[in-house]
C-alpha cells in the first residue's frame, strides 16, 4: 500500500519525559485520518514533527516516501497545515495575510479569492483580522493551509472555536477534499464524535503511544451490543450462570451476559427462569465509540 505518511519508531523527549514514544503512524493515500487522543497525549508534538517544526529525538518521518530529514522543503511544497491555534498577522487584512503566504508559495493570485470563497470569508476579505471572531480566524487558517492545493492537509483541532453550523460546513469541506482533489487529510481531535463523522481511518494515541490504528469500521466492531439482565438477586444469578458454564459479568444493578448470538441469550434466560429467579428486565446496551475510546485510554493509563 502507498503510504503518504509513515513514521518509524518516532520518539520525542522533553528532558526525561517522553511526549511521543515509538509511534508508528501509517496513512494511506486519499484517506481522512482521524488522530485521536486525550489532551496532552502527544498529538500536537507528533504533528509538529510531521511538519519538521521539531526534530525527533529518535526515529524517522517519511512523507510521500521521502525522508523528512533531508527533503524538508521539497516535502512541504505539498503539505498544508494548521497547527493548534490559528496563526495570523492581526494588523493585516485576510487578503494580505494570505498574500504573505502566497508570495512564498508562489501560486497564482486568484487562489486567494478561491480559498476565501471556500471558507466563506470573501465578504470580510478586506477587514483586518484583529476584529475577526475565533471561528473566522480558524477558517482563515484553513484557507491558508489550502492555498497551494497540497496533497496532504494536516489540521490540528480544526473545529476549535467554530459554531455548530461552522463545524458542519467544515466537515463537508474536509470530506469533499479527497474526492475532489485527491487530497489526504490528517485531522487531530480529542472529540471522538467529530472524528467518527469524518474519518475513514483512526489512530488513537495515549501517553505518546499509538494504542490503536485501523479503519473506522474495525473500531466500530468493538461497539458490540451487550445484554443486561436485571433479576431479584443479581449476585446469586451471576453465580449460578457461571456455575452453569455461561459467561457473565456482575454489574452494580444488573448482570451482563457476554453472549455471542441470540440463541445463547435465550439459553441463559431460560436457565435463570428454571432456577427460579424473577427476571425484571432484559435490555440491550450498545457500547458507544466514546466508551471504547475511554476504555482504551484508561487501560493505557492503568498499565
Amino acid at each position, binding site marked *: 500500500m502507498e503510504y503518504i505518511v509513515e513514521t518509524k519508531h518516532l520518539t520525542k523527549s522533553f528532558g526525561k519525559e517522553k511526549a511521543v514514544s515509538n509511534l508508528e503512524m501509517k496513512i494511506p493515500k486519499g484517506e481522512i485520518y482521524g488522530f485521536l487522543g486525550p489532551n496532552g497525549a502527544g498529538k500536537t508534538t507528533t504533528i509538529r514533527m510531521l*511538519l519538521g*517544526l*521539531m526534530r525527533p529525538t529518535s526515529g524517522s518521518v517519511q512523507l510521500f516516501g521521502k525522508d523528512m530529514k533531508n527533503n524538508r522543503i*521539497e516535502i*512541504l511544497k505539498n503539505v498544508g497545515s494548521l*497547527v493548534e491555534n490559528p*496563526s495570523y498577522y492581526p494588523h*493585516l487584512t485576510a487578503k494580505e495575510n494570505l498574500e504573505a*503566504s502566497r508570495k512564498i508559495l508562489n501560486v497564482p493570485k486568484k487562489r486567494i479569492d478561491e480559498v476565501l470563497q471556500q471558507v466563506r470569508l470573501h465578504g470580510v476579505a478586506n477587514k483586518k483580522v484583529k476584529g475577526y471572531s475565533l471561528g473566522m480566524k480558524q477558517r482563515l487558517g484553513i484557507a491558508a493551509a489550502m492555498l497551494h492545493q497540497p496533497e496532504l492537509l494536516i489540521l490540528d483541532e480544526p473545529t476549535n472555536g467554530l459554531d455548530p453550523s461552522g463545524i458542519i460546513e467544515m466537515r463537508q469541506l474536509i470530506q469533499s477534499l479527497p474526492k475532489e482533489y485527491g487530497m489526504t487529510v490528517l485531522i487531530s481531535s480529542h472529540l471522538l464524535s467529530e472524528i467518527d463523522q469524518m474519518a475513514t481511518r483512526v489512530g488513537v494515541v495515549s501517553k505518546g503511544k499509538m494504542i490503536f490504528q485501523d479503519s473506522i469500521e474495525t473500531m466500530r466492531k468493538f461497539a458490540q451490543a451487550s445484554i443486561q439482565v436485571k433479576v431479584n438477586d443479581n449476585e446469586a444469578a451471576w453465580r449460578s450462570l457461571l456455575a452453569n458454564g455461561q459467561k457473565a459479568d456482575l454489574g452494580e444493578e444488573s448482570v451482563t451476559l457476554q453472549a455471542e448470538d441470540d440463541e445463547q441469550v435465550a439459553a441463559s434466560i431460560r436457565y435463570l427462569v428454571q432456577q427460579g429467579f424473577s427476571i425484571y428486565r432484559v435490555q440491550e446496551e450498545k457500547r458507544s465509540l466514546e466508551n471504547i475510546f475511554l476504555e482504551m485510554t484508561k487501560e493505557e493509563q492503568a498499565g
Partner: protein
Amino acid sequence: MILSLVKADFLKIKRKGMWLLCLIGPFGVVALQMVNYGVRKDYLFDQMDDRWLYYILNINTFTPLAIVLGIVILTSFMASIEDETNAWKQLVALPVSKRAVYLSKFTVVSCIVFLSSVLLFLFMLGYGLTLGLGADIPYLRIIEYSFLPFFAALPVLGLQLWVASVSKNQAIPVTLGAVGVILAYSAPLLPDWVIWKWPALSNDWDHSYINALLGIGFGLVLYVLGMIDFKRRDVK
C-alpha cells in the same frame, strides 16, 4: 526563495510604524543640531576653524545612539510580529529553510536602517547648507559619517536579532538593548573592543573605516551564529 520571503516580510511590517521610525531617527539627530545651532550658532562657529567638520562631529554625538536604539526597536518589532500569534510555526511549515527565514529578517532590518542612513545623509547635508558653514562642502566626510555608523553597528544588529528571535519574551532583547544604548552613549569611556562603541567611529588608530570593516566582519560572525542557533531550535 529569499526574495519572496523578503517581499512577504515587507508586507508584514505594513501599518506597524516602522517606516515612520526610519524617518524619525535621522530627522531627530539633525533636529537636535537645529536646536543647538539655532540657540548658539555664533558660539559654535568659534569652536573650530573647520565649521563643517565641527558640525558633522556634533551630529555624530547622537547618531550612534539613534542607530543602536533604532536597531533594538526594529529587531524586537520584527520578532514580535511573528511572536504575537506564534506565526513562526506557520511560517516555518511553509516550504522555506529556516536559514532563509532568518536571513530575510536580517535583510529587512538592514534595509530599513540603511535607508535611515541615506536620509541622515540628506538631512545632514541639507541643514548644513542652510547654516552657511563654508563654500567647501566636504561630501566625503558627510558620506563617512552617514553610512559608516551603519556598518559599524552591524554586530549590534546581529546580536539583537539573534536574541529577539529566540526569546519568547521580548523584554529580554529590549533590556539588552537598553544596556546597549547606555554603552553607545558612553562610547568615549569604553575600550575599542566593545561593539557598542563602534558606531561612534572613534578608535585608537584614528581611522573610522576600521570600525566599519570590523563591524561588517564581526556582524557577519554574529549573524551566522544567530542563524545556526535559530535553525537548531524547535519551533514551539
